[in-house]
């Protein structure tokens, strides 16, 4: 087993051109990703948390080579995806799959489960009739569905079962990496648990490692060993998930933890304004919302640096204890 990371992203930058609202188009062009780097290893699922507009979904698309960055690199098992010729990128796609938030919207209601689940195989141009059917059956069984479910249509299943179909589809190419974008947030609590248990099983037994994107800290802590907190296109804190949420070093991480509703204590709502106002050209991107900001925070952008000797890194001039 090699020591190469399963996935390594370095210095990713991506700016979308906002579709022309006249003179405002330029002003709004804030990078969706402003220099993102991290690596994740086989068997250790990795979480990304952050609010809408933090760039987490852009990151997912680029990690899967569904979109190209302006600059920076993505390496899957040591191979740089954006330097590969197209015909070599195609087989690499078998190693990485995606599951989405809405299990209904991502399944074609007119197709049978068999065809839906086999779709990534067809796209890769492999597997003939008999082998294809065998792999569909195996994939359905791996997610706790019956082989006979292959002949049904999506509407014959509940929401939780439809998410299983989507997971079976992702598994059929035997991927190492599965990017999961809010995989349980559309599911009822009673079926969320089934899906989370399934994800844990797949990591342990099927060699699947998840890049899990979610706004739900408890879900991320349940699945991911390491988590990165994103804010406006940057990683502001990264570290071992449970330790980081128990003891956040970045004020934004602290804000997320405090805002998360808990059964055992009332949530604390911060008094700072929500949208944080316009971003300063220099300085910390979080400064307008930060309850701990000092003059230096407005002048100089903090860099992501190691804190306390462990794996924790934080981009803050005055990290919390």
């Amino acid at each position, binding site marked *: 087993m090699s020591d190469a990371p399963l996935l390594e992203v370095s210095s990713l930058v991506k700016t979308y051109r906002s579709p022309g609202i006249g003179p405002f188009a330029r002003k709004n062009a804030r990078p969706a990703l402003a220099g993102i780097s991290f690596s994740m290893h086989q068997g250790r699922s990795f979480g990304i948390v952050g*609010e*809408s507009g933090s760039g987490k979904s852009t990151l997912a698309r680029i990690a899967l080579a569904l979109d190209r960055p302006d600059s920076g690199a993505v390496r899957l098992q040591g191979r740089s995806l954006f330097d590969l010729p197209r015909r070599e990128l195609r087989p690499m796609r078998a190693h990485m799959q995606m599951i989405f938030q809405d299990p209904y919207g991502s399944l074609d209601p007119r197709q049978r489960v068999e065809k839906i689940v086999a779709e990534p195989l067809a796209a890769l141009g492999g597997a003939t009739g008999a082998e294809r059917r065998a792999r569909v059956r195996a994939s359905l069984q791996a997610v706790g569905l019956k082989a006979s479910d292959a002949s049904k249509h999506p509407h014959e299943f*509940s*929401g*939780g*079962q439809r998410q299983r179909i989507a997971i079976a589809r992702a598994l059929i190419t035997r991927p190492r990496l599965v990017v999961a974008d809010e995989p349980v947030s559309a599911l*009822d*609590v*009673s*079926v*969320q*648990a*089934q899906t*989370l*248990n399934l994800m*844990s099983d797949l*990591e*342990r037994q099927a060699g699947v490692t998840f890049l899990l994107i979610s*706004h739900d*800290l*408890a*879900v991320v*802590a*349940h*699945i*991911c*060993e390491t988590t990165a907190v994103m804010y406006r296109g940057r990683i502001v804190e990264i570290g071992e*998930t*449970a330790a980081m*949420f*128990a003891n956040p070093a970045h004020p934004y991480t602290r*804000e*997320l933890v*405090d*805002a*998360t*509703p*808990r*059964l*055992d*204590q*009332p*949530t*604390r*709502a*911060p008094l700072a*304004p*929500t*949208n944080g106002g316009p971003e300063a050209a220099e300085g910390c991107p979080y400064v307008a919302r930060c309850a701990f900001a000092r003059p230096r925070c407005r002048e100089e952008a903090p860099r992501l640096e190691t804190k306390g000797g462990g794996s924790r890194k934080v981009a803050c001039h005055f990290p919390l204890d």
Partner: protein
Amino acid sequence: MLLEVSELAVDVATRRGLQRVVDGTSFSLGEGESLGVVGESGSGKTMTALALMGLTPEAAQVSGSIRFEERELVGLDEDELRRLRGDRIAMIFQEPMTALNPLRRVGAQVAEPLMLHRALSKREAHARAVALLEHVRLAEPERAARSYPFALSGGERQRAMIAMAIGCSPRLVIADEPTTALDVTVQARILALIDGLRVESKMAILLVSHDLAVIAGHCDRVIVMYAGMIMESGPVEAVLREPRNPYTLALLEARPRPGAPRGARLATIPGAPPVAEIHREGCPFAGRCALTIAICRSVPPPEVAFDAGHISRCHRAGEVGAVR
């Protein structure tokens, strides 16, 4: 009592016949009180909220009684209901764009109920609308009033809808998943805003949510619904600390807990959330419940009372132990 609901039932006509989506719910709500309604899809929580506003779909038949400020709302004609809505009873929805007209400026929309119910002039209503937008802590209320809804962020739109809802000082605000589509940091601020408004103007809140944790932090009492039925109700602390219904207990245990080891097994509820049924015998949760015995499948569960208004509807309520 501000609101007294008894034996409320909603039947919806479908191709398969009448389906009972709300099945004999009874609850009450006093001035300034906040009641949480929690449930999964198909629990009937949204239909219950719509029934209180007289906004159930055309195919639905409402029966039972809804008494609001000593008046019976079931069977009230549409004109009378319209006079109540937006005045004495207001509603906040999950998606502000369902309540806000995308083609009209925000200020005009906030002003509208004031002109309709309070007979303010256009100018007075507009001035009041700006004050309301400031009251819900929208930065730059003048600018917000001049904006069209699309120009505001999700959180700002939700604040605008709250401003519209509270304009006439309603006595009851029904909030159906008001923060579900928002980021968690925005959610915390909106819920704090609703709390503050309730305390300062003594309006009652009915907060509908799928998230027990949201209700835990913001309500005095909670009702837990499943398949159109109230399974458990009572003070929030009692219900969460000592659930007396297997369904509530299962909901609590299915959530990943902060501080639990990574990948720890979560308790699951077998099967899928219920679909509305035409005929039902016994307890709606019987097919998924770990405590099911023969009687659960044939006889509807009785209401069993515990301390201080804590009620569980379960044949085995006494055996559901304390977990926390």
